[in-house]
């Protein structure tokens, strides 16, 4: 469409605005599609998180934590792949400068995905997933990113992880070796915190929730400590004695 630089008749104006309409409609439709995909991602991610919790609390004889963690992560892998392919599907809608435009519509799902992914990663490796690793999970086979991961999404996704870790620690505490697990999570979360505290101001609200989660984990670790200090035996041996009593 070639038009004069100034629009001097109703017809040229209408032609130009017709073009604007197409552009706006395109934009709105794309936004809608991305919002829908983001909701799908959110739902699948929540299911992954439940699956991980479920696997970690299954009664499977004497399986140790490492084994359980690997099993949980490998069970989650399929669903995580599914989510990744949803992101792959959004790729054309998010190419070039579009990602920055639609980021806020994609963020809710993306953050929930990072929460799920980092939880699986923690259970398998007892470590925090790095920015690089998250970005790598959102690349095609050639290692080209579907879109550039924003720092904000990475950090906000991780903030939510603490909530899940708190749930994990509290659910584990009444199981064999729970004390150790509560302590591990406690140190892990503190470490994450201490790493970030000096840098961030804007994450405040989320960090308040993280702080509450940390306090809950600390309270759980405390409860075990207080109770075992009353007896003069190593805590593993105490666990065995209790198990003996409770065995059906």
């Amino acid at each position, binding site marked *: 469409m070639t038009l004069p630089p100034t629009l001097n008749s109703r017809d040229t104006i209408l032609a130009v605005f017709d073009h604007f309409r197409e552009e706006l409609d395109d934009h709105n439709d794309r936004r809608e599609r991305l919002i829908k995909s983001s909701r799908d991602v959110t739902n699948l991610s*929540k*299911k992954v998180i*439940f699956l991980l*919790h*479920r696997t970690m*609390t*299954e*009664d499977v004889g004497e399986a140790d934590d490492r084994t359980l963690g690997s099993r949980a992560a490998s069970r989650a892998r399929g669903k995580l792949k599914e989510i990744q392919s949803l992101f792959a599907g959004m790729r054309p809608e998010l190419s070039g400068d579009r990602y920055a435009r639609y980021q806020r519509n994609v963020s809710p799902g993306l953050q929930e995905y990072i929460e799920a992914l980092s939880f699986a990663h923690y259970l398998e490796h007892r470590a925090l997933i790095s920015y690089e690793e998250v970005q790598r999970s959102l690349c095609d086979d050639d290692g080209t990113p579907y879109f550039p991961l924003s720092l904000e999404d990475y950090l906000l996704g991780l903030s939510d992880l603490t909530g899940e870790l708190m*749930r994990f620690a*509290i*659910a584990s*505490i*009444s199981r064999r070796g729970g004390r150790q697990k509560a302590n591990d999570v406690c140190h892990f979360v503190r470490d994450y915190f201490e790493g970030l505290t000096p840098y961030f101001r804007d994450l405040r609200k989320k960090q308040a929730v993280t702080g509450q989660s940390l306090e809950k984990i600390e309270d*759980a670790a405390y*409860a075990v400590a207080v*109770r075992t200090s*009353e*007896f*003069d*035996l190593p805590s593993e041996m*105490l666990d065995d*004695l*209790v198990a*003996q*009593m*409770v065995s*059906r």
Partner: protein
Amino acid sequence: MDSQNLERINSMLDAEVEIREKIKEQVTEFDKRTRTLVGILNRIHSTRSEKMSTLLDQARPVLDSCRETTAALADIVPPDQFWKWKDMWSLSLRSAVFSATLMEYLNSGTLLSLPAVAETLGFKPEWKDRVTLAVEDYLHGVITLVNELSRLAVNSVTLGDFEQPIKISLFVKDIFAGFSMLNLKNDTLRRRYDSLKYDIKKIEEVVYDVSLRKLAPSAQEKAE
């Protein structure tokens, strides 16, 4: 607005108001019943196990009387409108579910299933589009049951019963395993499910205290 349309609107409105009023009346009654029931069952915390069945006998007729509410509601709610009205009575209903499952646990040590609770409370399958026992209400009731059992574990030890906490521990762990099968949304149920973990922790602590005091005499000595 043309008068035919207005009339239609008006009659629909009036019908709704009437239904709401009638349900409210039933709910007031239902609420009284479940409060009495919960009041009676609150006494389990100071009742020795041998006298428990007497207590249950007292509660039974109150529980049975809830069937009247169920039937009355089934009469009031129009076909297909179960979900429109259920929030009005679900608090009371969850109390009733809690009471029924607590009584069964105290009686047989097992978990009353959803259909069994529904039957106990007098729900008829043919009413299912008007009044029925929804899964979420059953689950809420069961969570309240676990909350109460963690309190019972503590109090039964005070009363000298060291077996109850161990029984409760096994029972509650099974229920928890059940709950962890579910994919929950971020709603009340999720929040209450999270709180279950604290109940289990408390119960485990009691079991721990009791077991070690029985099996680790050396520990015992130190503690005294």
